[in-house]
């Protein structure tokens, strides 16, 4: 039974001239992995959930609140959705300090509850950012950047966390330290989590369920181990998993 804070999404995406339908629910505490090769529509799916693109048909609802439903002429803009997104390319505000990036997220929603100064300190400790608090974000290493990006996403105190290939720009060793930090963050996160990845190991490590996208369509869905086993036997993603090693 879906939790009252679940994400429920049934929608049509447009990828070029191709329309495709997807449907899934994500309960808090049961993160969803979105698998698929490049160009399968994984990123578009996250953008639709965050409101960075509008869906053509269907309905996206979070905690029984409709976010996007063309049929009902309802669209909640991304800034009002309380869904934080962690991007593959970090998208930090390079001219601000590490602390400044976190403060930006804190002050972004002035009228609603966000984390306070003490919680910024707590986030900086949790993501090992204290030593570099005053550094400009543009001067950080890849691992530091992604740790800050995750901390910044949490600083906005979101109700849903969206992660778009958070390790793909990092080498294995750096990626592992970020993985550990992200693992703790996901465990503690009270709302739905969606992780887009092409790394099957990451999917199994962080998520409970998975969907496999091909050309904007769900090819397989279910518990993450089932979906991953299905993929491994079919070696559908063979070429896609190799680059990560």
């Amino acid at each position: 039974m879906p939790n009252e804070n679940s994400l429920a999404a049934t929608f049509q995406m447009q990828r070029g001239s191709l329309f495709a339908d997807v449907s899934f629910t994500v309960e808090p505490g049961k993160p969803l992995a979105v698998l698929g090769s490049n160009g399968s529509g994984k990123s578009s799916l996250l953008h639709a959930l965050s409101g960075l693109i509008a869906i053509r048909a269907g309905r996206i609802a979070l905690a029984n609140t409709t976010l996007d439903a063309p049929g009902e002429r309802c669209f909640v803009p991304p800034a009002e959705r309380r869904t934080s997104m962690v991007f593959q390319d970090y998208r930090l505000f390079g001219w601000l300090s590490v602390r400044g990036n976190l403060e930006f997220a804190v002050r972004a929603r002035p009228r609603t509850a966000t984390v306070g100064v003490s919680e910024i300190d707590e986030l900086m400790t949790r993501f090992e950012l204290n030593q570099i608090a005053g550094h400009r974000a543009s001067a950080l290493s890849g691992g530091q950047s992604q740790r800050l990006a995750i901390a910044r996403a949490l600083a906005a105190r979101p109700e849903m966390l969206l992660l778009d290939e958070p390790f793909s720009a990092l080498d294995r060793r750096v990626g592992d330290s970020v993985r550990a930090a992200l693992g703790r963050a996901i465990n503690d996160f009270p709302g739905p989590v969606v992780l887009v990845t092409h790394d099957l190991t990451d999917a199994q490590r962080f998520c409970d369920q998975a969907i496999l996208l091909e050309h904007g369509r769900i090819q397989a869905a279910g518990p993450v181990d089932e979906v991953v086993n299905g993929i491994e036997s079919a070696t559908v993603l063979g070429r896609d998993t190799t680059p990560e090693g």
Partner: protein
Amino acid sequence: MSIESREGLISAQRNERTADKLATGARPTLVKILAVIGLLFLVAPILGILSRVQWLDLWSQLTDPAVRDALVLSAWTSSATTVIAVVVGVPLALMLARGHGRPAGLVRAFVVLPLVLPPVISGVALLALLGRNGLIGAGINTWFGFTIPFTQVAVVIAQLFVALPFLVITVEGALRTRGRHLEQAARTLGASESRIIWSVTIPAVRTAIIAGAALCWARALGEFGATVTFAGSFPGVTQTLPIEVYYSLVTQPDRAIAISVLMIAICVVVLVSLRRSWSGRFLRDA
């Protein structure tokens, strides 16, 4: 075995420079020759003008009251132009960067038009709009008793018309490549659109704004055709440096060349400092 010996041969010939060259791709001879011709074509005229400079009385030429008047006029009008260009050009670039489809394409075409339009035509167009008998100018004259041509206001307007596109295009390019992604991140964090513009968009493209402003300033400084057509030419009022060059070319060629050298020097300084900000800060902020 044979592979090892070949590698030995290659590493014996190898040094850092040739390896770098081979790695980036060797350039065919014909390409090199044509490139040198192209480069000479651009550089030789500058060398030509430098060869004509009377270096000893360069300073006295440039401190002549007539030149000083033109210099002061050019400096402040092109600075005023640049300030206005930033104030209206950055918002215009924002609209263009966010727009898509046919209307945005049409708007962009109009924005770029002054870049390719002969400046004299720009001047004629400004007269048709803001001249004493112009579409708007006639009304201004009737109601306020003020005519724009032959004033410093006209100089700034002429420069703005010609130089604004440089700023808009530079900033728009940066907004498309750098601004959009950061705006998306700020949006998912819950920042309002006005907050995003001030705290994300503008800081994200600030180096492009500086670069665009510098290009705009340099173009305004060199403006001739539109200015002379729309604003006329009167020493100390509307006679800018390029007009001074053109008018003194015949009777006082040494002065014309002295001013030319000054303007070339200014433009080189602007471009070199731009290069630094592009290659340095743009990459560091990425």
